[in-house]
């Protein structure tokens, strides 16, 4: 984890951030989630289809996918952490930069040094699967894959009707547009797709 410092940052989200927090440097991996399952006895309502999962995240070092918001929350709790709020996520993704489109700045042409998204090029050799976490350059806060690889569950409700939870960051299957640091998507908390994963945060005392 790295410590994300509290400075008056600019986010497009309303909730302000009041204090420093720690964030996982990478998305939670398959290996970490397996460890969680083995040692916690947590039983997903529907057993995880590993054969399908391995098609998109083939090793322990790839991001865990096909996890619902509930699974992600359970993991975070087991680890003594929690999911980031949307504001925390976006603040951390900006990596200390102000008013830039992507975690690395505005330059689209260097996107593939930082992110696994649709297609291949540069560092992005993955077409059709996730990349091993940390395969690209980190942002200004030392966080990897805040853009691309897998969408990341956040704590918050997306809507006032409280039906959907927020996802941020874009994924291996999405275009450049979705890698924007302010881009918001959502899904029902029970959804467990092959392009959604998560990472955790910890409040600093």
């Amino acid at each position, binding site marked *: 984890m790295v410590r994300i410092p509290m400075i008056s940052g600019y986010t497009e989200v309303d909730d302000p951030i009041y204090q420093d927090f720690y964030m996982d440097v990478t998305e939670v991996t*398959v290996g970490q989630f*397996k460890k969680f*399952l*083995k040692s916690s006895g947590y*039983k997903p309502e529907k*057993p*995880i289809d*590993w*054969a399908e*999962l*391995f098609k998109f995240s083939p090793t322990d070092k790839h991001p865990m996918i096909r996890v619902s918001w509930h699974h992600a929350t359970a993991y975070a709790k087991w680890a003594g952490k929690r999911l980031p709020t949307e504001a925390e996520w976006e603040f951390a993704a900006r990596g200390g930069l102000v008013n830039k489109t992507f975690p690395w700045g505005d330059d689209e042409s260097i996107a593939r040094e930082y992110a696994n998204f649709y297609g291949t090029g540069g560092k992005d050799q993955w077409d059709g699967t996730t990349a091993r976490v940390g395969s690209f350059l980190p942002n200004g806060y030392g966080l990897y894959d805040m853009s691309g690889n897998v969408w990341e569950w956040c704590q918050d409700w997306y809507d006032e009707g409280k039906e959907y939870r927020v996802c941020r960051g874009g994924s291996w299957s999405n275009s450049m547009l979705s890698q924007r640091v302010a881009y918001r998507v959502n899904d029902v908390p029970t959804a467990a797709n092959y392009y959604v994963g998560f990472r955790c945060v910890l409040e600093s005392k």
Partner: protein
Amino acid sequence: MIQRLVVVLLIMVVVFVGCDEKETDKVKPKEVVDEGPKKRIIWEKDGAKMVLIEGFARTKDTYDDFGDLVPGKLVKVSDPFYMDTTEVTVGQFKKFVKETGYKYDRWDDMVEYSPTDKHPIILVSWFDATAYCEWTGKRLPTEKEWEFTARGGLIGKEFPWGDEESIASEYANFEGTEGRDKWDKQIAPVGSFLPNGYGLYDMAGNVWEWCQDWYDSNHDTRVLRGGSWLFNSNFLRVATRNNDLPSYSTYYYGFRCVVDVPENQKGSKVKL
């Protein structure tokens, strides 16, 4: 005197040397190893090359709840049996007819499509096929046996060689020409292509092969498997089923035989 001594000495040498050899034989008897039924045989009656099918299959690899690999297990699918490595040939069927006087009068038509003794016999009904089998002391394969052997030890694959349709012409004579498949609208001599994992030739393509079973609960048609020279690659799939009246015969129906391992050859258990 000296002569007698020499003779005695010689006799003593012979006796003692002889004794030594006998001692060695007693201490180390020869070991007899029972290796079980032979993997490859030639069936005397029709000269058919046959391979031993051990009747074991490996189930698919799966994962447990924690994502750890659970490797497939070896399960017994059937008792061991031998299978003809190729479809029954014109030459073999000729021998059958000659020795038994069995009534078969399609030679003129047949020779147009299966011109040599090494081509598969065609224009044979299910009854003709069964009669040949009886003569040899063998039988037609069941549908289950046919599909199991066609898979050649592979699990969950479409064709006898795997999933790649693009390499079909290395293994099968079907519609058109390409690769090894030089026969267009013609039958190929048996064994012209690559065999599958069990050493069986032409399980896909060339001629459809009669099986023992009824096709369905109507009990009016018998099963045919394998696709043929006339059909497209879709029919080469191991799971594709065809059927026809047992009295019917045509240019693209043939057969091969199987036989259960004779009791006296079963031998020791199979090593897993």
